[in-house]
């Protein structure tokens, strides 16, 4: 399995504050993804990256931005956190397109 570390694992923040979640991988996988998991919605793609500085939007990208300055790191930023962004966030990596993705352990974010 890919070594994927998400930080922090838990965070409580106030509405309107910026928040950055970090994903670090040690497997040199090209593709990296940010998903959120919510009851009744499964896993929904927020943003993904297909290389350093190459990113694209997923299905629920509003209110989120990402950056990938190094192969191993993929950052997700909530520009101004809202209560609707309370969720569990998962980072995933994949070596190639159309192959299995490997997931981190998740970050539980609560916006109060």
């Amino acid at each position, binding site marked *: 399995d890919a070594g994927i570390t998400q930080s922090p694992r838990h965070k409580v923040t106030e509405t309107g504050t910026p928040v950055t979640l970090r994903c670090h991988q040690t497997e040199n996988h090209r593709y990296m993804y940010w998903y959120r998991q919510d009851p009744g919605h499964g896993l929904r793609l927020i943003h993904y990256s297909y290389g350093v500085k190459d990113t694209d939007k997923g299905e629920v990208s509003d209110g989120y931005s990402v950056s990938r300055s190094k192969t191993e790191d993929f950052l997700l930023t909530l520009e101004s956190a809202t209560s609707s962004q309370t969720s569990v966030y998962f980072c995933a990596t994949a070596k190639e*397109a159309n192959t299995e993705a490997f*997931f981190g352990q998740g970050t539980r974010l609560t916006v109060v």
Partner: protein
Amino acid sequence: DQQVKQNSPSLSVQEGRISILNCDYTNSMFDYFLWYKKYPAEGPTFLISISSIKDKNEDGRFTVFLNKSAKHLSLHIVPSQPGDSAVYFCAASVHGNEKLTFGTGTRLTIIP
């Protein structure tokens, strides 16, 4: 628009019997399908996959069946074991597209 649907939110099966989890999709361009398993407080882990050129793929106790004409896939687990109790997600992608689209998940409970 939910392109990948898991219409059963939960399923209970007696230990030793067969568990059948179902998944339907609407996008006829999908040509690669995966199943993931998720325990509480952990990230999803890859279980098994199938490409559209096949209609069956088997790995130990796990078999995935694909019916392209019906846009339906299923995961069979036999015999079911208590450690199989988890949430199962199906996912799909289009060749050449880096994104995985997930279903909403089915919670499988194996009754001892």
